[in-house]
């Protein structure tokens, strides 16, 4: 995956509302400015896992179909790509967020990603497991850190057994 430095992530109230609906959260802090002002949030804020949706602003994000390029999801066939491994490249093992302050509509976050540690482990359910860590920093327009996210991905040798 390509992770260009300095992706701009403009935080918008509508995006927060859609994201909150998607996680089944209809709390006023996520969609109703009037009611949100009466809470200790003092206005609309983003749910804690919202930073992940920076994917929308990464022009090269590999899990979004792009015009003129093949896509591994189904169309006429079960996959639009042939001869590729059946895995999309990995599953999510862990995710951690640390916040210096809440994210609010109007923030324009500068986002950069760097690789962290990587390691391997054997498992019964999916063969060899290859873990890798990625650290994403979200900074505001003053260059202050707002959020640091640490993600651990795992690639499996085969699909996880379902028993």
């Amino acid at each position: 995956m390509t992770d260009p430095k300095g992706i701009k992530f403009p935080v918008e109230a509508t995006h927060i509302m859609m994201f909150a609906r998607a996680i089944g959260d209809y709390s006023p802090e996520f969609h109703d400015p009037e009611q949100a002002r009466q809470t200790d949030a003092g206005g609309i804020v983003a749910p804690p896992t919202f930073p992940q949706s920076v994917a929308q602003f990464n022009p090269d994000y590999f899990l979004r179909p792009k015009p003129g390029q093949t896509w591994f999801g189904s169309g006429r066939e079960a996959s639009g790509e042939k001869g590729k491994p059946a895995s999309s490249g990995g599953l999510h093992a862990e995710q951690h967020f640390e916040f210096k302050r809440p994210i609010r509509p109007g923030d324009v976050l500068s986002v950069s990603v760097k690789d962290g540690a990587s390691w391997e482990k054997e498992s019964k359910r999916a063969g060899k497991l290859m873990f890798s860590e990625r650290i994403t920093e979200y900074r505001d327009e003053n260059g202050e850190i707002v959020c640091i996210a640490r993600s651990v991905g795992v690639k499996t040798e085969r699909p996880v057994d379902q028993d």
Partner: protein
Amino acid sequence: MTLKASEISVGDTFEEVLVEDLKRTQLVMYAGASGDYNPLHTDDLYSREAAGYPGVFAHGMLTMGMTGRVVTNLFGPANIKKFGVRFTNQVWPGDDLSGRAEVEAIREEDGETLVDVKLTTTNQNGDVVVTGAATVRIDP
């Protein structure tokens, strides 16, 4: 209504139903909002025939997002300092999930009162799908 430190004690537990009979449509909503369009989560044909799974399954981040509701409902979404999880089992359409938070510590740090909670999200079979932890700021 967010909790105050005087209203909770170490060992207190809080439970919340996160979803009943998880719908595929919710996976589509999550894909659209988050931008994670991995067909494993929205494209049953791909998931079964190309990837070898029984069908689509939930984004880990959807389960984490739903789990976060236990924390934000108790303590307020503007008061989260840390929130982390480990994904331990996949979540499938039709699953019922319930989230549990246990107060592990109430402590002072840099003039703030903080609460550490342990998080567990379980499906209808009693399988743990997410374990995690959060640290939140709280009024005394």
